[in-house]
């Protein structure tokens, strides 16, 4: 599930999900490919995995644990339940018309970039795209775990894959209109898939390279036809999608905004600040990245599926930009705004957690913070050196830096707790256990001595926001304590994520984050540590460790193949792969974060989709 803030945006920059528009496409890390097992040769050189990293945002507020952590590897600090504490009313049965109307005001420090749903790759706007754009399929727009479910959206139903899992025939719903009044037709669907490549969507090479004809589209986007790949039948009102090979994760990929259906008249370049007509309950009325984004009701919207696209409540949604996060918190406290996108600053957490507790919702995320270690340059080209880092880092200390055990939990595995394929296992904890207990500095020091790397200089590259810098300083202290001469390089959010991907920068170790795109283990393991995800010298090389083990890669390929027949069997294999990767230690997983949503008093019907986060169009202000 593509979700929210996550995954792979290689090439994007900093903020939450990442702006594809800012990414240069020149490599196709296989990350995304991960999902399209047999088409490595097709991977375009411009594919950019989505980054996951929403740093700033999650940095401060994020953190650990609850619900998911119940079954997590989080040791003693693992919470067991969500900290949401709202007393605001919530819709329990159907649409409640008496709450319709009013204006929801959202705040963010900055805008999220282009409004083009095929280009934007930020959590900030993917959240809005849920109420505006639709694909053939979509993630269910509901609260909780059910939000990971894929449901038919503009398609009447989800077809069974035929032709050995390589062909899908989608019947298109009739009577749906774009916000400009034109009908949604099968031609729009075909044009929309072509547009993915024409605008060089950041996931074009990753998610959609498995469509027949995609290889040519990736080579020459301007003339993309996807001939034989996406075929319209006007008579039957169906769209047939042919894949080169079966892809068990294909429906997830159809459900993210990059696969949204736009009018065939939409520009074949990044639409930028100009809104593209929508199909959902809202449309964009105006957008000035320096000041505000205004969404109003789509006059041509009629609810066709409550699961896929429910009717919204507010008449208008105003997103205002420019306030500092401190000022935004105060505005929400004073009722001048309904919600702020950015995580509340660390020194305001206690205040809002006590004085405004009923308005605060803490949500577990399928994400993790980790420290990728470059396995191709000293000192971490030495296995013992990498294992020493895993032994030395006290995950509980990092939990404290992120706001305490209610906002983060320690992790020992690459797959976050609660994620498909996750099995509690902790190879680097003292005393031994399946969940995090504590570090073993003595063992770490001995490993460093045995590795012959003691005394070497190590630079830790982090972003320059408060929380990441604090984590970097902590890591520096740890590395110094086990025998290295560590320094911290704090660089701008805007460039750190791409900087640490490029092997030419010779980054030894860094601190970064990864958020799921959709709920599949490959989205973490194969994307982050698959051989095809490492492109030397590229800013779009999401395998920052430069790790490539042929044996483990074969296991991952096998797991992907198994997904075609049994996800459960595949997840067993992914768990084994996770364990093998931890033994090799190309990364030091640190913590899994939680998200703080702070609403003003009187804002009701808070619903949190695990896939796309808070459903802004379901909020009540009346």
């Amino acid at each position, binding site marked *: 599930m593509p979700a929210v803030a996550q995954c792979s945006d290689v090439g994007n920059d900093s903020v939450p999900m990442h702006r594809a528009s800012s990414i240069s496409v020149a490599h196709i890390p296989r990350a995304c490919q991960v999902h399209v097992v047999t088409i490595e040769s097709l991977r375009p050189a411009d594919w950019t995995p989505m980054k996951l990293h929403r740093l700033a945002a999650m940095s401060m507020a994020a953190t650990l644990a609850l619900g998911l952590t119940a079954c997590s590897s989080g040791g003693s600090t693992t919470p067991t339940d969500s900290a949401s504490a709202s007393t605001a009313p919530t819709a329990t049965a159907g649409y409640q018309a008496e709450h319709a109307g009013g204006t929801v005001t959202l705040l963010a420090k900055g805008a999220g970039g282009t409004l083009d749903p095929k280009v934007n790759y930020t959590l900030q706007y993917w959240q809005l795209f849920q109420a505006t754009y639709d694909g053939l399929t979509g993630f269910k727009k509901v609260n909780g775990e059910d939000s990971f479910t894929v449901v038919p959206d503009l398609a009447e139903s989800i077809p069974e894959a035929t032709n050995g899992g390589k062909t899908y025939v989608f019947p298109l719903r009739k009577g749906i209109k774009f916000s400009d009044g034109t009908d949604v037709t099968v031609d729009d669907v075909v044009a929309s898939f072509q547009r993915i490549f024409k605008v060089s969507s950041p996931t074009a090479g990753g998610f959609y390279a498995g469509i027949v004809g995609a290889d040519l589209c990736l080579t020459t986007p301007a003339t993309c036809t996807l001939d034989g790949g996406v075929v319209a039948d006007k008579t039957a009102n169906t769209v047939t999608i042919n894949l080169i090979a079966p892809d068990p994760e294909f429906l997830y990929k159809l459900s993210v905004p990059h696969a949204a259906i736009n009018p065939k008249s939409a520009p074949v370049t990044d639409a930028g600040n100009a809104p593209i007509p929508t199909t959902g309950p809202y449309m964009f009325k105006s957008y000035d990245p320096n000041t505000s984004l205004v969404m109003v009701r789509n006059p041509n919207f009629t609810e066709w599926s409550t699961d896929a696209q429910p009717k919204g409540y507010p008449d208008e949604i105003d997103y205002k930009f420019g306030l500092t996060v401190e000022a935004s918190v105060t505005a929400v406290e004073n009722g001048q705004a309904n919600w702020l996108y950015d995580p509340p600053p660390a*020194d305001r957490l206690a205040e809002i957690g006590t004085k405004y507790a009923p308005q605060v919702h803490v949500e577990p995320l399928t994400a993790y913070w980790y420290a990728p270690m470059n396995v191709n340059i000293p000192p971490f080209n030495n296995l013992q050196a990498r294992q020493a880092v895993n032994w030395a880092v006290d995950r509980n200390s990092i939990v404290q830096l992120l706001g305490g055990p209610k906002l983060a939990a320690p992790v020992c595995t690459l797959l976050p707790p609660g994620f498909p394929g996750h099995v509690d296992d902790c190879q680097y904890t003292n005393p031994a256990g399946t969940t995090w207990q504590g570090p073993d500095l003595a063992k770490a020091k001995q490993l460093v001595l045995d590795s012959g790397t003691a005394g070497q200089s190590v630079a830790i590259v982090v972003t*320059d926001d408060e929380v990441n810098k*604090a984590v970097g300083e902590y890591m520096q202290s740890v590395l110094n304590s086990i025998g290295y001469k560590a320094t*911290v390089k704090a660089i701008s959010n805007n460039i750190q994520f791409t900087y640490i991907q490029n092997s030419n920068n010779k980054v030894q170790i860094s601190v970064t984050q990864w958020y799921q795109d959709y709920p599949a283990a490959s989205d973490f393991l194969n994307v982050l540590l698959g051989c095809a995800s490492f492109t030397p010298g590229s800013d779009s090389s999401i395998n920052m460790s430069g790790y490539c083990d042929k044996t483990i890669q074969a296991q991952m390929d096998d797991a992907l193949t198994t997904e075609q027949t049994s996800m459960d069997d595949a997840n067993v294999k992914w768990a084994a792969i996770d364990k093998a990767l931890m033994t090799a230690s190309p990364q030091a997983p640190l913590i899994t974060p939680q998200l703080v949503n702070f609403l003003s008093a009187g804002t009701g019907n808070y619903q949190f989709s695990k896939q796309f986060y808070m459903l802004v169009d379901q909020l009540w202000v009346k």
Partner: protein
Amino acid sequence: MNTSKTDISSTPATQYAGPWRTAWRDVRRNKVAVGSLVVLFIIIAACLAAPWYADHVMHLDAFSSNINGTYLVNGVPKPVLETSTSGLGLGVNPIGPTWDPANFFLGADNQGRDVMSRLLYGGRNSLMIGFVSAVICCVLAGLVGVVAGYFGGGLDAVLSRGLDVLWAFPVYLLAICLSVVLINATLDIGPITLTSGSIILPILIIGVIYVPYVARPIRGQTMSLREREFVQASVGAGATDARLLRREILPNVLPTLIVFLPLMTAINMLTESALSFLSIGVQPPDASWGTVINDGVGLLYTRPMVAIAPGVMLAITAVALNLFGDGIRDALDPKARLRGAV
């Protein structure tokens, strides 16, 4: 004639102690300058005692993370970083000021480190960077200003245009640009290698960017001195350029440079703090007053002392340096004496 000579040698002329001793006497008579000097002395002494304080009073390393550390309250250990237990239990707050010198006097920062220890260590770096960069600045400025002012012509034109170029950049913008480029890179200058994060880098950057501010008046003063009678007399007596510079020009320019020294030290300290606040000056885990202020920014609502303490120290030191510099200026400037400034 004999009587006349006797009268001259026996009058106040015999009591004149020379310009430097006279200047020092004047400084000592200036209560504000003396008071500032005492304040500076106390601050410097306290900062020099930082290792002693950290090792023998706080018993805590000022540069290592202490996130899970504890401190004793009535014999009971308490966490230095305390997790909120009220409400939803969000947030972690470091201990605030205890006003107990042996127990987190000014509280802890977000790494659990003692703020007082880092304040003292930070003062060492801030003062050292401020003073050394001021010396570098004054030496370079003196060299450039005297050479340009004395020789004039093409050499003056080249040097002056160089100063103009340097002066054309807003000083903080130039400092930020240089720091961003250099601070995270290893710099090779001939046989000298400056590693990333080296404290020498901010010293050099700050020392260089202020050269025009000192070199300009020095050049003007040198041009003026070159036309003075005593210099012309030396020229007429056949003195070489080297001798003229050494014996006539430099001694007269030196008081100006000395006056600049404390003033530039204060300015450079502020610049260093600004760069460190922006994370492009002193690099962690080292401390300066700027980095400590930066550490405190995220704690302003809950632990404001982390940012306030270094800010206050910076202000006191800068004011003291300026007042002391004013005293020196008054003492070394004969015109000021004639005006009755001392």
